């Protein structure tokens, strides 16, 4: 076979796919394994110029010439499409982009000047979970119409800055576009074995016995493990350790791991799993909160981690009241109440979880993993494997999307480590797409009994919410989620009084956890749709009632969270103007409508998951006479671009080109500790650490230059690429300045850190949960078409304005907004992490695949109009706040409100499927 113009021997078994041959024999790892079965397009290559799913092609049946992403560049450099994807910010995690670029190439070869619709059609078989497709369409058009030049210049910086505020490339975007970036499954170690995990076919069963002897005896099997070998219960939240890597006494959902095997290859490992005999005593299961809360319901956990008997399935309950809610309700001018249901959904990162473990002869463990919380994984691996933390190294290679779905230790990481130890060789485990659905930790389904009231002026006087969270079989972040469901709701709109009761219950389903907008996306649905109903009762415009209630910068929420800055009014202004709201809301023809919604989100949690006084983010900078700056940060760049953000910040402080700043992240051995990419904390916290380290190094450079000039550092001015004397006509280039500094101080380095110092949060039990040093704000206006005959809703436009404080790199911020909107609309209209509740199929996931779990394609996603609002935060680096999660929240209620404007129905259950719409229209 000819691949990229070179002859490649198809020396593989007949049943291997082209994808396996390319990735595992030919070393061409640019084509990715995402869904196993042609549903996502990440494996797309060209065969005779035609986009082809390598995972659905037998290697030995290929007769044409294959072009992979590695074959697209020429000696002159990357292909214009690769350049354009880089330049336009069309790459985030990059995992789906190699296939996307090849689909685009086939289009441009056929049609050199496609319009937007043709581009979306041609890319509709390539799912992207990060970008919302907007910048991808832009990149394809750019590649078709203009030369993309190199070097790519930075855009203009914000006023008063060298780099901050400038549009620019993301770190390693070109590596992702050319297929050279390495993700975990791209790694191969000498003598590497492949692991697989045996999973439960029962939703609830007691394990009477496990016999692994036949599996262990199979030729090619190196190690077999069962739950009793990993007996230490754990949880990412150290207060609630209710989980083990493999089930020990009971299985609690279909898909829970019970044993694992390492073998010479995956086929052998699969054969070995089939030889493991597990004797189950099947128990009756609880699958919904109603079932779980029923008297005499079977208990998912008979006892807790301290051995105390559990009387029911409630794993956490929080009740908090701020002000006299009942009195406020009693005197309200308008009240809305009812029951709302929020459906579960999952992250759907296109890269399945993957981990590779290796031990050295001195008993040191290295684990490469697709994780977004390297530090917490590091700690837990040491506990699970009973080795000192000093002997564990966790490396996060490039990661193909995460969204909260890779933010705690998973069974495959712990199993790979133990299997590698027992097998005496490296072991890799790659989840199938089905296993990703069982690992889950996605959005909790929630039920709300919700009440809200307002006075005659439209001011919200009371919010009262009784919340039930369907937690699945274990805790995960559930303790926090239970709080977040209540604690994060007050703001950006002001509540007069507030009460919530939040109960998380165990059910026999995969465990829920944090998905983008952890715990706080769900309650926005009742709140923001009920506010529209209040507005209608009071005769107020929906945007106006939100203005009436908008918080101001420096205000404290009813539950005691200080909001140092908020640009919610500017966000509302932006979406009102963008959508031509005043002329169109309430005035469009039947079937077309506009809806608005708002939200607020944290910029990191004020306190770490385990109490300590050490930095939450650490940064070290190393510099030398070459002019190259290396920034070491324990952050996890999960595609959002945190490494580029840190480079921007350090370059700003030093006055150098961000292209000369190389960020080393994702390695616990090389980098100072950072708590990870969760709760939208990185820009704020690691940003402050990077700024501090940058300032420290700058001080040395300025001092050395000042000494050289015989002046004081205060007379030295840092400018792009040089340092200049404030009064005299003297200047020195940046590299020469570094040489002066290295001569003066020796080896050059600096450090910086972030730690929440002042006390944040309410003065009550749980008051620190939801406390953050800064809060973003968002407003959306959605425009929908509702077909009253079919019930099908099409999102036509979405205007999203997000207050991220200072936009350090606006291209990256827009990418976060667009991606959030895509995830929100997909959740509102298409996705449902759903289970059968009746019959023999009871307890089974309804479709653990990217075919049956429907992520919106490029054709289902409208152009997203993202605008940035910069309400500078007094604490954030240069005023920056979060952008990664907040912009998702309003999408769901904005769409619901738009549906009401279109056809006059109020939906309180999501997703907004056509059968529900029709039923509501007929009711």
């Amino acid at each position, binding site marked *: 076979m000819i691949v990229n113009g070179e002859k490649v021997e198809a020396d593989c*078994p*007949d*049943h291997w*796919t082209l994808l396996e041959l390319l990735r595992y024999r030919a070393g061409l790892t640019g084509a990715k394994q995402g869904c*196993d*079965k*042609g*549903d996502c*397009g990440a494996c797309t290559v060209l065969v005779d110029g*035609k*986009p*082809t*799913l390598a995972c*659905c*092609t*037998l290697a*030995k*049946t290929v*007769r044409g010439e294959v072009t992979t992403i590695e074959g697209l560049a020429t000696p002159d450099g990357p292909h214009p499409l690769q350049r354009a994807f880089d330049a336009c910010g069309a790459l985030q995690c990059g995992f789906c982009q190699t296939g996307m670029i090849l*689909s685009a190439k086939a289009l441009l070869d056929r049609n050199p000047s496609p319009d937007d619709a043709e581009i979306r*059609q*041609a*890319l*509709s*078989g*390539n799912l992207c979970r990060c970008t919302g497709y907007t910048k991808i369409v832009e990149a394809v058009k750019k590649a078709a119409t203009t030369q993309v030049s190199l070097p790519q210049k930075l855009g203009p910086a914000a006023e008063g800055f060298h780099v901050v505020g400038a549009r620019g490339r993301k770190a390693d975007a070109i590596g992702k576009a050319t297929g050279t970036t390495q993700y975990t499954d791209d790694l191969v170690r000498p003598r590497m074995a492949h692991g697989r995990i045996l*999973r*439960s*076919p029962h939703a609830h069963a007691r394990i009477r016995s496990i016999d692994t002897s036949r599996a262990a005896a199979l030729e090619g099997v190196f190690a077999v493990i069962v739950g009793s070998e990993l007996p230490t219960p754990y949880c990412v939240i150290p207060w609630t350790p209710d989980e083990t890597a493999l089930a020990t006494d009971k299985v609690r959902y*279909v898909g829970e791991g019970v044993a694992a095997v390492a073998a010479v290859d*995956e*086929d052998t490992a*699969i054969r070995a799993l089939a030889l493991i005999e597990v004797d189950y005593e099947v128990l009756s299961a609880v699958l919904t909160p109603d079932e779980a809360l029923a008297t005499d319901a079977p208990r998912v956990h008979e006892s807790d981690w301290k051995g105390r008997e559990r009387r029911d399935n409630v794993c956490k309950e929080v009740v908090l009241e701020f002000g006299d809610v009942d009195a406020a309700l009693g005197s309200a001018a308008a009240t809305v109440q009812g029951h709302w249901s929020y459906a579960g959904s999952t992250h759907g990162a296109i890269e399945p979880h993957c981990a590779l473990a290796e031990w050295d002869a001195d008993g040191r463990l290295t684990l490469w993993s697709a994780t977004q919380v390297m530090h917490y994984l590091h700690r837990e691996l040491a506990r699970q494997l009973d080795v000192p933390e000093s002997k564990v190294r966790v490396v996060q290679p490039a990661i193909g999307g995460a969204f909260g779905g890779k933010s705690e230790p998973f069974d495959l990481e712990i199993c790979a480590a133990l299997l590698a130890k027992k097998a005496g060789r490296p072991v890799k485990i790659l989840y*199938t*797409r*089905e296993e990703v659905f069982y690992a889950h930790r996605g959005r909790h389904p929630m039920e709300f009994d919700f009440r809200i009231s307002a006075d005659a002026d439209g001011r919200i006087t009371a919010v009262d919410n009784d919340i039930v969270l369907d937690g699945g079989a274990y805790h995960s972040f559930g303790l926090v989620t239970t709080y977040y469901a209540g604690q994060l709701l007050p703001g950006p709109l002001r509540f007069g009084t507030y009460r919530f009761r939040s109960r998380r219950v165990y059910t026999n389903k995969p465990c829920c956890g944090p998905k983008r907008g952890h715990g706080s996306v769900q309650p926005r649905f009742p709140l923001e749709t009920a506010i529209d109903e209040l507005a209608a009762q009071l005769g107020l415009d929906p945007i106006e009632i939100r203005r009436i209630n908008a918080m101001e910068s420096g205000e404290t929420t009813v539950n005691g969270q200080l909001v140092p800055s908020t640009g919610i009014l500017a966000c509302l202004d932006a979406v009102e103007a963008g959508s031509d709201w005043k002329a169109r809301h309430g005035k469009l023809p039947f079937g077309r409508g506009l809806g608005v919604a708002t939200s607020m989100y944290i910029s990191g949690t004020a306190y770490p998951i385990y109490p300590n006084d050490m930095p939450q983010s650490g940064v070290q900078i190393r510099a030398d006479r070459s002019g190259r700056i290396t920034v070491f940060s324990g952050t996890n760049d999960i595609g959002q671009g945190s490494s580029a953000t840190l480079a921007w910040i350090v370059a700003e402080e030093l006055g150098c080109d961000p292209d000369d700043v190389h960020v080393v992240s994702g390695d616990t051995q090389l980098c100072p500790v950072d708590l990870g990419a969760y709760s939208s904390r990185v820009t704020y916290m690691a940003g402050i650490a990077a700024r501090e380290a940058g300032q420290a190094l700058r001080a040395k450079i300025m001092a050395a230059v000042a000494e050289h000039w015989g002046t004081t550092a205060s007379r030295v001015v840092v400018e792009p690429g040089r340092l200049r004397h404030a009064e005299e006509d003297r200047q020195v280039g940046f590299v020469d300045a570094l040489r002066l500094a290295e001569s003066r101080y020796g080896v050059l380095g600096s450090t910086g850190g972030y730690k929440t110092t002042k006390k944040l949060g309410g003065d009550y039990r749980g008051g620190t949960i939801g406390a953050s040093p800064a809060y973003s704000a968002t407003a959306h206006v959605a425009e929908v078409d509702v077909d009253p*005959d*079919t*019930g099908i809703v099409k999102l036509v436009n979405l205007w999203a304005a997000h207050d991220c404080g200072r936009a350090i790199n606006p291209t990256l911020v827009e990418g976060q907004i667009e991606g959030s909107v895509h995830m929100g609309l997909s959740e509102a209209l*298409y996705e449902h992490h759903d289970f059968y509740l009746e*019959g*023999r*199929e009871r307890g*089974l996931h*309804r*479709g*653990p*695949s990217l*075919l*049956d779990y*429907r992520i*919106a*394609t*490029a*054709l*289902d996603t409208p152009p997203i109009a993202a605008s940035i609002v910069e309400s500078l935060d007094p604490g954030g680096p240069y005023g920056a706040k979060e952008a990664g999660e907040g912009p998702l929240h309003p999408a769901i209620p904005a769409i619901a409100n738009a549906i009401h404007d279109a056809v006059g129905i109020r939906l309180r259950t999501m997703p907004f*499927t*056509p*059968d529900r719409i*029709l039923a509501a229209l007929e009711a």
Partner: protein
Amino acid sequence: MLRMPAFTLQQPASVDEAVRMRAELDSLYLAGGTDLLVNLKHHLQRPAHVIDLRGLPGLDGIEVGADAIRIGALTPLATVERDARVRDIVPGLAEAVASIAGPQHREMGTLGGNVMLDTRCLFYNQTEAWRTALGKCLKADGDWCHVIGSPKACVAAQSSDSVPMLTALGAVLELRTAPGEVREVALADLFTKDGRYDRMHTVPRESLLEAIRIPRPAAGHRSTYRKVRSRQAVDFPQLGVAVAATFDGRTCTAVEIVLGALLPSPRQLPTLDEAIGVEWTDAVVEAVADRVRRFARPQRSIHGDPAWRRHLAGVETRRAMLYLRP
């Protein structure tokens, strides 16, 4: 990674050799692979041999003759979709083919493969592990239909987008049923009421589809295909409505309506007398749409509320007829 069971790949040099292999070996035919290989990854079948048809000469291409359009079974769907003659002569077929799955599937998949597509079911198109947890079904290694809750019948849905349209167009299949033997079978006669892989067709399993022949429609032909699905790409049909009609002026002289994604066979309306010999007034359209709605009996074998899909059968029929009426 989800993995296929091991098999031996056979690459016959001729159609006769392929048919002989299929008859003699524990084997399956492979064309575009977009469906078969996924089914093998699900262990729905475990053939000892897979017979690669892609190298067989003479099985692709579109010939437009005086009487018929003949499309070779291995013609890629994308080729059919983009063929100007197909779009012009039988626009409904181009629409149906353009609606299949995603762009890559249409480059890889063949028209023959789409016609011979295995029936689909939410309880069948799942991994081995998932089906084991449920208990195997009648269609694969089991004795129970989870859709209807009975051991009596498999009601997996015919899920091809091309089949309803080709049926409405009166397509005829050229099948090599044995070495040297070609049998012509009307597509409308291909399907049984049994969704099981080995029983869904009325012809022997080793039959190899060589070509699909579509009689050239009479002057005044109009056709359209309406596909119901969640997303605008990738998804299989939740319902397919194919309508092919002939008009003399404003009067309809012939019409066929065929529904897909309901039962193991495409569902053709037996008589449509109320729509023939008359103009398609709103009243006629409503009457036909209502009859189609009552005729459609969606099962829970595939995604989407059955009652909603039934309602859509009426809506989409109405829309198709309004689109076609002169």
